[in-house]
């Protein structure tokens, strides 16, 4: 910043600007409104600024249409204006002081402020690309899809599509991998959001690098078994699992680098934690964290800061788990290899065309005899999606559903169960039999019959279905 620019500070010293009136996602506009409210700016000055922004927009429309059109659609205009305001906000926000930002808005023309904002965005873009390159070299070698796709697909797409001039505010990327500390501040959009996200992603990965990658994969796998889901396609944060288990390891006499928690360690932790009040839990986690940081010899200040913030979230989760006696959902324990990886008995079947399917539904609807209906289904329906469509096609009634379910094997019933009880299987720890028996009525007719069917099924078949839960992923089966 030049000397001249530095001198503008201090003119607005004792203004009554209220920070609570400033919207982070419309920083400059809300700042101008606030300045008008307290009388730091008058209406004429606001109008002048408005006109200058309008001129910027006029120029940008001409750049956007390459000088070929003076008018654009409202959608395009709003997009271009948001891009301009994003750049202006980038500059005014960089002062962190409302008064200083306002001084610059009073002293400089908007074109200059806009150009400085563009410079800041360009710098952030370059910095973010460098950060991304570093991350993609050092990322963890795990089978978690969201983690891998965010780095290999979502980020390159963002860098390719990002337009500093015409769409600086856009964050066009499907970033699925959840961070332990979410970047949810609304002011972060565009490249500033990606920058913040990748910085946190990097810190989490750097922390995880203190641990053996095989152990991390194993912990993820155990988590999948614990939640009866295929961990590879779930939205799991690796840092959380690793940090939590490392603390639990330390607190149960294990080594800091060992994140595999045995059943005995779990029993010990459960007994120990269940007796503690919230203050004692906080102290214990603080102590565990100190031991962990010492043992791993973590000296990076950013990682230490990140741990400090995450620890608060972690302590709350431990307190909740103790209160609800659900530590078994927080501590990921070692599980035996019960089944082979991913058994799929479903064969890839061709889904029927719409016209063929409609024909079958018509045929079934015309049947007066249930046996004929079942016979048509048996010989024509071979894909799960067709079966689900059929259930919803209002051509089966009452007991006919039971006869169709009778056609299905345990694998098929497992998949239907995962569809019907998705939330329950994911979120609670009850046995499947209990889930079925406690189940409230569904809105879908076929689901009502399906639940009823399961409630009357032999116990050993229910157990068999339950065993398949962690092995079958209907999301991965090709239905077409």
């Amino acid at each position, binding site marked *: 910043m030049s000397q001249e620019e530095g001198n503008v500070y201090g003119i607005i010293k004792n203004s009554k600007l209220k920070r609570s009136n400033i919207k982070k996602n419309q920083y400059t506009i809300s700042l101008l409104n606030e300045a008008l409210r307290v009388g730091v700016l008058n209406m004429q000055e606001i109008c002048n600024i408005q006109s200058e922004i*309008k001129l910027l927009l*006029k120029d940008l429309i001409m750049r956007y249409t390459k000088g070929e059109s003076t*008018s654009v659609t409202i959608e395009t205009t709003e997009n271009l204006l948001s891009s301009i*305001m994003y750049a202006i906000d980038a500059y005014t926000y960089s002062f962190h002081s409302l008064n200083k930002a306002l001084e610059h808005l009073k002293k400089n023309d908007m074109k200059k402020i806009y150009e400085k904002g563009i410079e800041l965005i360009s710098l952030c873009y370059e910095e973010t690309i460098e950060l991304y390159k570093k991350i993609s070299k050092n990322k963890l070698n795990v089978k978690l899809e969201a983690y891998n796709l965010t780095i290999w697909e979502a980020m390159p797409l963002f860098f390719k599509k990002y337009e500093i001039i015409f769409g600086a505010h856009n964050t066009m990327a499907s970033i699925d991998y959840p961070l332990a500390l979410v970047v949810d501040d609304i002011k972060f959009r565009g490249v500033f959001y990606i920058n913040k996200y990748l910085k946190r992603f990097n810190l989490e990965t750097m922390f995880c690098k203190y641990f053996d990658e095989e152990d991390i994969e194993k912990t993820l796998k155990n988590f999948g078994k614990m939640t009866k889901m295929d961990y590879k396609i779930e939205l799991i944060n690796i840092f959380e699992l690793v940090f939590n288990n490392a603390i639990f390891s330390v607190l149960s006499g294990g080594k800091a680098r060992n994140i595999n928690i045995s059943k005995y360690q779990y029993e010990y932790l459960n007994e120990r934690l269940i007796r503690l009040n919230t203050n004692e839990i906080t102290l214990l986690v603080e102590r565990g964290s100190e031991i962990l940081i010492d043992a791993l010899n973590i000296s990076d200040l950013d990682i230490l800061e990140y741990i400090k913030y995450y620890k608060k979230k972690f302590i709350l989760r431990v307190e909740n788990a103790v209160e609800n006696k659900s530590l078994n959902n927080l501590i990921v324990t070692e599980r035996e290899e019960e089944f082979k990886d991913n058994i799929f008995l479903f064969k890839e079947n061709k889904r029927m065309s719409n016209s063929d399917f409609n024909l079958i539904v018509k045929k079934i609807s015309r049947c007066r005899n249930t046996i004929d209906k079942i016979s048509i289904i048996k010989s024509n329906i071979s894909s799960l999606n067709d079966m689900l469509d059929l259930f919803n096609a209002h051509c089966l009634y009452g007991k006919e559903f039971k006869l169709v379910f009778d056609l299905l094997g345990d694998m098929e019933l497992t998949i239907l169960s995962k569809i019907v009880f998705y939330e329950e299987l994911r979120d609670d720890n009850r046995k499947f039999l209990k889930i079925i028996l406690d189940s409230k009525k569904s809105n879908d007719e076929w689901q009502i019959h399906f639940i009823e069917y399961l409630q009357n099924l032999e116990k050993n078949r229910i157990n068999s279905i339950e065993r398949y839960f962690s092995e079958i992923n209907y999301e991965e089966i090709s239905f077409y």
Partner: protein
Amino acid sequence: MTIRNMLNSKVLRKSLIEEVLKSNEKIKKYGLLLTVEDVNKIMETRNRALQSYGRIELEIKVTKMMIEEFSDSCYIDNENFVFILNELQDIFYYFKNETEDKISDIKLIDILKEYFENSCEGSIELLKSRLEVFAQEFRKKNQIKDSLDNGGVY
């Protein structure tokens, strides 16, 4: 002050009217003259057209170009000038949308003039229907071009 009302502000309106009036210099040789009242009407029609076709324009270049381009038409005189201009403005913004913003302002005005003067013989109704056909064919050609550009088979 919000982003929306920033676009709706009327600060520049007066200067835009003055800008349009300057066109009188160029059209007077064809016996045409626009009064302030005429320009107000033209501006109102323009704004209505922009609004109904969901477009924003922060300058008045197109209106001026149309005034000047059509002033030498053999189908236009001082009596029908404002009426025809208003119709042409509506047609212009409608076809900006219909041709998906892929034709430049100058080119579209050229096409309008060419049709108006020749095959439509000054008929606005005929111009509208001819341009509908033109826009359809234009979109079709573009679709084929986009498909080929993306390596697909049309």
